[in-house]
């Protein structure tokens, strides 16, 4: 009895209409919300979650007020699958509908896969420079490098998640413990002027001459947070002092412990690749007599030591390089036109929209053409 009602609920076309309508409101609301929240935050709150929450300013609690992307999309997929299981026979005149609906399921699942599995990073290269890693746009990491050996650094990277979550961090490879005194997702670092109200941020190195204060996280797409942290390093014999680490500080801070030399830096999180990309030449073409950009292109050298692969590739607008599961897009450039910024995307689901577009487009054509031909034919004979 209950099961019957459940089934009829999930197979009802009313549910489809309700889901689509909720989706419509959600998309509209989520678009308007971008004005205040920024694209990234609005995306997370409205589309990459189960509920849209509401909370009064500064309150520690929040209540769900509207179904968000995952919930609406999820129910829609269940609704589609259930309806097809229950109501649609697999016949020729339903072929169009089948194609359309499975195209849409594929699209939704593909996007879910993209949300969960894809990773966007950036690769900034000056002309001549080569890198075998790309950097995260939004995540930072605390890199502790043992640079005693002039030939090889030994780097331990502690991701932002850990820095934010734990107060005490032990690593077997390190002879000291890291105490995170504070972590600021966005911050401003300034010189410590005599008579300043804020005390110096830390006791060692730059931190002794600088102050730091937290800022609200940025919402604009074209700006990024400047995270900072104050860490204390302790050994069983006592504290080594506190350090201010920040993405604002562009050089690592070094210290000596026993006979080892270490470097500390907060830097954008790095993702290493088994190949390297070297920028040979960046070009910024404009239309004659104007500064309207016509094209941006980066000629890069791709090298993979393990396979001996070595080739030149031209990456330009609307023409990315797809290699080893990653795709490199021309994203930005340095003001002096001698450096490029490539967006590096790893998205295992990138092909699903292509398939889905073909399926749905073809399905709709089949459905409407057979159907509308009947409709005009009926009219002619009416």
């Amino acid at each position: 009895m209950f099961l019957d009602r459940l089934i009829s609920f999930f197979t009802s076309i009313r549910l489809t209409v309700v889901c689509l309508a909720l989706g419509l409101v959600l998309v509209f609301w989520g678009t308007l919300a971008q004005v205040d929240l920024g694209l990234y935050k609005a995306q997370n709150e409205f589309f990459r979650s189960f509920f849209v929450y509401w909370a009064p300013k500064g309150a520690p609690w929040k209540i769900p007020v509207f179904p968000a992307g995952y919930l609406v999309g999820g129910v829609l997929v269940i609704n589609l699958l259930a309806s097809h299981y229950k109501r649609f026979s697999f016949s020729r005149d339903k072929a169009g509908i089948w194609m359309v609906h499975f195209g849409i399921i594929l699209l939704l699942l593909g996007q879910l896969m993209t949300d969960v599995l894809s990773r966007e990073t950036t690769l900034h290269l000056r002309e001549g420079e080569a890198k075998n890693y790309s950097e995260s746009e939004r995540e930072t990491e605390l890199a502790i490098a043992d640079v005693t050996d002039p030939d090889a650094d030994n780097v331990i990277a502690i991701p932002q998640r850990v820095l934010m979550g734990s107060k005490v961090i032990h690593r077997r490879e390190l002879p000291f413990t890291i105490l995170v005194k504070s972590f600021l997702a966005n911050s401003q670092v300034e010189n410590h002027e005599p008579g300043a109200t804020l005390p110096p941020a830390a006791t060692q190195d730059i931190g002794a001459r600088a102050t730091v204060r937290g800022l609200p996280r940025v919402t604009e797409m074209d700006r990024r947070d400047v995270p900072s942290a104050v860490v204390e390093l302790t050994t069983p014999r006592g504290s080594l002092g506190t350090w201010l680490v920040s993405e604002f500080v562009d050089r690592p801070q070094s210290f000596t412990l026993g006979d080892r030399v270490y470097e500390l830096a907060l830097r954008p999180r790095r993702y290493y690749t088994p190949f390297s990309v070297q920028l040979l030449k960046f070009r910024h073409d404009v239309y004659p007599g104007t500064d309207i950009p016509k094209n941006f292109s980066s000629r890069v050298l791709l090298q993979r030591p393990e396979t001996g692969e070595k080739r030149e590739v031209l990456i330009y607008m609307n023409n990315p390089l797809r290699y080893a599961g990653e795709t490199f897009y021309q994203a930005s450039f340095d003001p002096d036109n001698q450096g490029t910024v490539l967006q590096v995307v790893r998205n295992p689901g990138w092909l699903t929209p292509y398939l889905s577009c073909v399926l749905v487009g073809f399905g709709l054509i089949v459905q409407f053409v057979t159907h509308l031909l009947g409709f005009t034919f009926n009219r002619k004979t009416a």
Partner: protein
Amino acid sequence: MKWLWKILPWFFLALFGAEIVAVMLPKADGKFHVREFGSLPVLLNGRIQPFDSVARNSLLQIRSTGDVPLEEVPSWKFWHHPQKLKATEWLLEVMTRPETADTRPVFLIHYSDLLGELKLQDKGVQKSGLRYYTYNDLKPLLPEIFEQGRKAGEGKSEKQTTFQKQVAKLANAVTLYQRLKVTLQPEGVNGFAGELAGFQKNLGAAQAAAQASETGKDFDKEAVRKVAEPLRDFQFMAQYGYPMVVPPLQPGLVRERWQNAGASLLDSLRAGQVHPAMVCFAAMADAYRQENPDGFNRAVSDYKAWLMPGFGRELRKGGAEFYYNNVKAFLHATIIYLCAFVLACGAILTFALAPNLSESLRRSAFYLVILAGLVHTFGLVFRMVLEGRPPVTNLYSSAIFIGWGTMVLGLIIERMYRVGIGSLVASFAGFITLLIAHNLALGGDTMEMLRAVLDTNFWLATHVVVITFGYAATFFAGLLAILYIFLGVFTPMLGRNLAPAEAVTSGSGALSVPASGIEGQKPAINIGKALSKMVYGVVCFATLFSFVGTVLGGIWADQSWGRFWGWDPKENGALLIVLWNAIILHARWGGLVRDRGLMNLAVFGNIVTSFSWFGVNMLGIGLHSYGFMDAAFKWLMVFIGSQLFVIALGFLPIGLWKSFSAPPTAPAGVGDDAPTTVSATP
């Protein structure tokens, strides 16, 4: 009487057809060969265009019109064509007779706070409630205008106040005007051709002197002085000259390296010779200033003869664009659409009262929509060829294309159901979209070059065209629905039966009278049902095009930015249309709505589409945004309000609908009681 009804449609077609032919025929030039001059190619905004386009687009930015009226004509004297300066004539005047040009009221300032700030309320010329000012009026205020304009330009454009925007616009207009003045010669120079000849003569001596000075020998100081004087003027021209009028000397090497006049003259110092193009331009400027038509015409044809071998392509492009500018295809299409709309309204209103008249008007409207459609298509295709691009490249061309799409759909519908509905909607949509396009064109050049990411004909031809057609189809369904609601509430039309299709199709001359249920024939379908089927069919196509278009857009984004879907406002706008069309179809299939519900949903589709088309651009964020438009925002709100009003009408109880409360003319099956005959799912 009958012959009159037969002839009327042909009369309308002939009338407007003759006008179009007259417009399209090549025109003769006057005393000065201004048209020939207006076709000459220059390089501006990264593209080759004729002087005429430079003039027209500058004038649009300065005066918001394409020409300068010279006399006041009261608006009720519509038959009297006022004397006016054509765009190219105005440009020639600015370039060669600045003293006269400075007395023309061309600067439009309509923001009252700005007028107050500049204390201009009592000056200037008023025309149709708008105030125009001459350059001489503004001259004493220039420092203030530039200072305010500079301040306004400092902030982000989304955060500018209306005052700041207006003052920045005025500062730009004045700068543009000043730059145009030094396009061909230094401002207000008499006898520039002679001066340039002298300069040319002294060049050799000056070069020798310069070489001598470099090697430390004694040099001819007088020769250097003679050349140095004009150089100051040339430097100014090089810095401010607006269009690049001088083509490169070696077209085979660097075809695109055009220069403005000043830069070219400065270069002649190095080359030891004045560029031949500059010699011609100086002769033209001089002759036009001295009111010497023969000299002017000779210089223009000399220059054309010089251009022909190396720059034939540019010359043809200039000529073609000049022709395009002057035919004003979209303006004429707008007028014909308007007439067709009036005729189609007449046809529908007289449908029952005077069937013969109605059929005659319907035919007239249909023919005119076809004619307007041809003119519209001509303009659209001409533009595509000029640009070398698919039809939609910016907001302006999207308006033109949406109008074109609805026109095509309307003609198809009119062919299927011959009651004037298709013509009515096609002409209305054509008129409105071309009007919108006209207003969008006031910003200046509508054929601007496409920024890097958009510079791809493949995606412009697929994604953009498909999605714009989706917009057009959604609007078309919405307009049909509005018609349904109006006809239903205010007239008894919806209940009337359509003539059986055969009766109208067969027998070309037979103007059949729609009759209800002729014996022996299958029962005719009433207009309400027919409209419902049309809306349903159009929504189906709208779904197809908007879905495929949206996904193609995602794929393009995947190709250029590395993500299929980024919840960018423009993407969301497109998704809203897809969702809305899907809602309409599912609500219909599920039996949640019948005819009237379908119509209300379709009208709401207009709101969704207008938000997607214009609204998202007003959010001022996202990769797709083209800029904030406050005037357009007001109109968008008016539009949304009107649509909500129509929906409210649609919700009136059925008893208040004239079509359904009157004694039924159809046997059965009117309105919500009718079973849905169209259904794709069980």
